């Protein structure tokens, strides 16, 4: 399965943010999306999640045949966690599982999901508004893991986690990547180099893949910084 982007364009007033983007993302890989502040990483995600209209171009899934990206295909984890704060963690999972019932494969019990995400027993029945930033982020990741969409867009998802949880999350992403296309935006180059199979740079509105074959991490870092500095 591939996510194919063709001639994608987006501008705000006169500012061109995405310029004729052409790219293919493949299943089984984690893509590290790097870009400077304001480069358009979130805009790209918003376009793919159809939160905003694109000005031109298209994107679609190519499996055995070509088809439109459907709502069930995409899971989007934002850098600021978004969870319904009037529910408890357990209630949120119950609701989410109920409305996705026919799509969830190998459904587990709610407590098994909590265990999987290492959410402590005493936190499971607390209101989400009383969860810490990192805990909310865990819940957001968890529901996306449960729904198991083909494409996972992760907008700086690990920055709010402590080092132990961040490691656990990285491990989880590595485990689930074989069935998904994971696009992971981050500012932390070490994280991208450590976790991602491919490094993609968004600069001046275009996507460019960095070839990391046959070079060590230090050279790769320099190469990425040079690419990001290019005016």
């Amino acid at each position: 399965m591939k996510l194919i982007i063709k001639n994608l364009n987006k501008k705000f007033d006169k500012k061109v943010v995405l310029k004729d983007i052409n790219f293919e993302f493949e299943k089984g890989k984690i893509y590290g999306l790097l870009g400077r502040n304001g480069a358009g990483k979130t805009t790209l995600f918003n376009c793919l999640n159809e939160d905003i209209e694109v000005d031109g171009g298209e994107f679609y899934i190519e499996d055995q045949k070509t088809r439109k990206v459907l709502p069930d295909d995409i899971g989007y984890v934002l850098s600021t966690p978004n969870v319904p704060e009037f529910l408890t963690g357990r209630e949120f999972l119950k609701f989410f599982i109920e409305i996705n019932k026919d799509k969830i494969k190998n459904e587990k019990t709610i407590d098994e999901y909590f265990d999987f995400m290492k959410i402590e027993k005493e936190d499971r029945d607390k209101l989400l508004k009383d969860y810490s930033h990192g805990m909310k982020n865990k819940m957001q990741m968890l529901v996306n893991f449960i729904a198991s969409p083909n494409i996972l867009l992760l907008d700086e998802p690990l920055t709010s986690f402590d080092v132990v949880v961040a490691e656990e999350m990285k491990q989880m992403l590595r485990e689930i990547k074989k069935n998904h296309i994971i696009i992971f935006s981050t500012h932390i180059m070490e994280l991208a180099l450590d976790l991602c199979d491919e490094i993609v740079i968004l600069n001046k509105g275009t996507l460019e893949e960095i070839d990391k074959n046959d070079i060590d991490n230090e050279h790769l870092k320099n190469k990425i910084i040079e690419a990001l500095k290019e005016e």
Partner: protein
Amino acid sequence: MIKTFITSFKLKNTYRTNSIIYSIKQLPIIRKILPNSLYKNNGLKIFANIISILCEIIGIFIGKIIYIAAMIVSVLSLYNTNQADTFIHIFTFLTLCGGVLNTYMLNPTKDKYYAIILMNINAREYGLSNYYYQLLKLIIGFLPFTILFGMTTGIPIWIQIILSFFVVAVKLIVMNYSIYRFKKTKKASNENLPTKFVWGFVGVCLLLAYGLPAANIMINQTIFLFVFIISMILGIYSLIKIHIFKDYKKMYKQILTETNVYAVEKNSGTQAIKNVSLKQIELDENYVSNKSGFAYFHDLFVKRHKKILTEAVKKQSVVILVIFIILAIGININGEFKSKINNMLTVFLPYFVFIMYCLNRSSSVTQAMFMNCDHSMLTYRIYRTPKVILGIFKERLRTLIIINLLPASIIGFGLALMLYLSGGTDNTLNYAVLIASIIAMSIFFSVHYLVMYYLLQPYNVNTEMKSSTYKAVQGITYFVCWYMIQIQLPTLSFGIATICFCIAYSLISLFIAYKYAPKTFKLRI
């Protein structure tokens, strides 16, 4: 101090000018034509500046005329008393209410927050100069209307003039008392969070303002003169105390917290507003919902927001019941009052459009729906599928109609009962029309706010309100309802027309919502 005032005035004006340009930029169609560089455009800035200054000038007068007309002049005809004395009596007690509820100085507004907290402008100079400016506006704003309405009710010219100075004196006394309390307790009072004592004081004042004239007891001109002289002496003393007080910075630091400031600016929306909304969530650990899917999700939303949903409506209903009981007693003991109420009920139904508008909870409930629920859920694609959107819409519509129906039914049946007690009507259909039209109005507002919320979803991902169309719809709704106050039409014909309109509007708007909400109900980016 003058320099600080000019700086603060410029700051406020810049903020208001940018808001005007921002509003223009949000207008449908126009927003597509206008570029972002609009804020730099000098011509437009001058235009927005002129509008801003005009707003400031109009703002001096508009509130005062509405206040005097709605709160005093409109009720004068209900009393068979000396009009001049009744005017002075009600004005005096309402001034006492206004004095404790609106001090200007202790109102945590955004412009104070920007200037004192964010820009570190001298708090004393800022607070005092703006306070004096507000008091001056008060005198200028009240004077023409105390003279105008004073002349029509036969109040002597010297009282017409001193009425506005009386208002200022009362405000000064209250402010001085607040400063005195701050000095003693080190706790500053936020005027938007009145204590139970303040509410009690306001309640007693209102009762005395409107109740005593019914028993033909009033503050006459001599007593008023005495009250005025005392308040002027205390007012001048307070002015001196307020002027020499130094710890404004300390006081404002307590009042101007983010939560206080953004609790006032309900429509502007930021993280602070979100925090205010989050406080409305209450966990009842004993409650377990046995519903599933959308119904489960919505059921928990309602249970967790009891404070703004069911409890608020219950409080409303109790107040309405008490008002009806007072009216029923009045009808029984006063023949003239009885015939006036009977007459009112046959022609004043349009007035209830405005009352039903004010009582309807849907506007604040949809805001809570966004802040505490849809803001997060709309980022999930699954939540934006037509099945989910319409499923939750149905649940919400049912709840909004039911909760608003409780006070509406009390009003509907209460009005019919008042009509009966006050002498009845030749046409018995009037009773049914009164009840049905009030209930229809309630359903109309519930449908209207929810449909508008789904069709125009006005908030963005940062919980800021970004839709000028939504604001315009809110403004038009308010204006139409307010306009209805001035209309007198036979209850029967107006009631039937209202019922038909409400049914037609609700059906059409629900049809439109079902068709378009799956496309329009999403986060603004």
